[in-house]
């Protein structure tokens, strides 16, 4: 782990397929391609936002990156260590470095454990601290997430949703992780409480130098917290770029539709803006369409989109998109859309983002 610019997490060609068994003999008849070949890098201290609608595979991707699920194919490197094929026993030793905050604070806390026991559990599992040291650490963590120390002996049901999410965050931070996957940490909370939790996550990131993978369907919140954003659709990353670029000039038709569908709290703008309403529903990931995954709902679909799966291209520095509209090889002879000054360039590997893959150490 030499230079600071090296990615902390680096994912290549990640696939997670869930088999479908059917018939009398429960034979394997197909697979739900929840995550179907995604790749990204996360640099130390940054927040990568992973957005998409329900069923696009973003949560599966988040869990797979921490190996809470077994991956079908691909490589996952965390701090230079390849973990995609690592047995769970060995992974245990790495767990303190990478943690997760779950979506539902109600379901992810054991109702029969006190707050102290919940936050202490990772310490019991992974450290040899004395009882007094653990108690001290738990109190420290409760301070860090702005929970009253006096509540340590209470049970989760006595807390509100926002407070429960703080307990979940304290537990995730107990072992001083470097990398935290936040899977929709604010989706279950009220608006006024969402802001509290997001501010807390930002403060902790700054203080502890955390790196986040922030999974969410809320684009306005992702714009607030993420430094770079990846947009997923049906198991693929269709677009990835820095926050400013993505929100100012979205490249993929899906990102554009997604952004136009966000309801801004501004009645004047709401009356005048043009909303791109996508027709139909997301196809089943067990049976994705031929060609581009998005071709069944894309307002700009061309004949080629129903035949050929688009490659992921870097069309500007750090701006990745998987769409034929941005591929000069496809668009030659067709009226092109304006993008960056010099237009897109093709790179060798469709999923090698930002930094070249590093060899195993």
């Amino acid at each position, binding site marked *: 782990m030499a230079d600071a610019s090296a990615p902390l997490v680096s994912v290549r060609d990640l696939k997670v397929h869930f088999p479908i068994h059917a018939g009398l003999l429960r034979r394997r008849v197909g697979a739900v391609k929840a995550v179907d070949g995604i790749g990204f890098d996360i640099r130390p201290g940054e927040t990568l936002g992973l957005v998409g609608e329900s069923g696009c595979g973003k949560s599966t991707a988040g869990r797979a990156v921490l190996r809470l699920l077994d991956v079908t194919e691909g490589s996952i490197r965390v701090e230079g260590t390849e973990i995609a094929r690592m047995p769970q026993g060995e992974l245990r030793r790495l767990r303190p470095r990478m943690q997760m905050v779950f979506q539902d604070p109600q379901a992810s806390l054991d109702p029969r454990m006190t707050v102290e026991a919940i936050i202490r559990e990772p310490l019991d599992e992974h450290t040899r601290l004395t009882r007094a040291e653990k108690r001290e650490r738990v109190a420290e963590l409760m301070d860090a997430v702005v929970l009253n120390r006096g509540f340590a002996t209470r049970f989760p049901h006595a807390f509100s949703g926002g407070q429960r999410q703080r307990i979940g965050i304290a537990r995730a931070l107990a072992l001083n992780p470097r990398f935290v996957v936040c899977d929709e940490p604010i989706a279950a909370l*009220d608006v*006024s409480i969402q802001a*509290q939790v997001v501010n807390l996550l930002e403060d902790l990131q700054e203080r502890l130098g955390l790196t986040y993978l922030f999974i969410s369907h809320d684009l*306005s919140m992702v714009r607030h917290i993420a430094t770079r954003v990846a947009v997923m659709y049906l198991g693929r990353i269709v677009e990835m770029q820095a926050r400013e670029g993505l*929100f100012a000039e979205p490249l993929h038709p899906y990102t554009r539709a997604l952004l136009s*569908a966000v*309801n801004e709290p*501004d009645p004047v703008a*709401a009356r005048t803006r043009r909303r791109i*309403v996508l027709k139909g529903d997301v196809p089943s990931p067990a049976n994705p369409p031929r060609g581009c995954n998005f071709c069944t709902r894309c307002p700009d679909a061309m004949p080629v989109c129903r035949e050929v799966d688009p490659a992921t291209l870097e069309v500007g520095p750090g701006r990745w998109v998987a769409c034929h509209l941005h591929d000069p090889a496809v668009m030659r002879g067709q009226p092109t859309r304006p993008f960056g000054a010099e237009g897109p360039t093709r790179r060798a590997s469709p999923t090698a983002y930002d930094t070249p893959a590093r060899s195993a150490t």
Partner: protein
Amino acid sequence: MPEGAPSALPIPPVLEVRDLRTVFRTRAGDVHAVNGVSFAVREGELLGVVGESGSGKSVTMMSLLGLLPSPPAEVSGGPVRFEGKDLLQAGPEELRAVRGGRIGFVFQDPMTSLNPVFTVGFQIMEPLRKHLGMGKRQARARAAELLALVGIPDAGRRLDDYPHQFSGGMRQRVMIAIALACEPRVLIADEPTTALDVTIQAQILELMAELRQRLGMAVVWITHDLGVIAGIADRVLVMYGGQVVEHAPVEALFANPRHPYTRALLTTVPRVRGERVKRLHVIEGQPPILEAHPDACTFRDRCPHAFDVCHRLNPQRYPVGEDHDAACFLNDPGLAPPRPSLEVVHG
């Protein structure tokens, strides 16, 4: 309603609620969920109701239709005027004729509000046969029309499908089709898009706007999403602690909010366009759980402007503009001395 408004309401209200109160009497104590809510909905208008969970917005709507089990719920106050009747005084038979007939209801969760063991067609036909006395064949034809109206392709064939064969967005469309079946005068929609993805939500909002125009019904739309409200509502009620704290036409509410809670709520939401704020505004603290009827401002503990009166009295709804009122002492013209300007709130 502000008194002495120069012009009478241009369109008479379809549904008028006055001083509605709901108390849940439980073994652990009383919970005062709705504390004197008054509002009116006019024909063809969309009234948005916003508030956090626990602010009493859903309970208000369920109370006025008698949908809450009693005990523990105890609904009082009123009247709730609808088509010349007081719904709170109506007997169960009368209420049943109103619910699903003259007043439609769309619930929040499309996954659990359809019965999994009946076909979708059966569930759309049910109100048609019960309320309009249609025969089986006629009801089926109408059900297919309704399903097509809410934008489900191949509607006729899909009548025989079961709810699990529909996606979330389609199930919510089915719920809307059921609510619309008898062409209600008022549609009450309780967070109809909250469980849905943004692109599906956009489809439903588009559909609602179109149906409202075509059928001319009044809609009460409950949500906690200010973005949705900005896009579809004509007027808005902001609820907090089981009370209406602000009521205004939608433009006025967003341009000139007069209750500190509304102001705070508007600043907590990040945006996808325009300037990106460095840090999100936060309303410190938690919404209250009221064990008694409030005798002081329910927002006082989280309010940056709270002063002595706020701890002693519960503010009434002071008129602050046309069709605009706010329940905050800062808007009380009779209260001169300790009156910090509301403008300071903005950070």
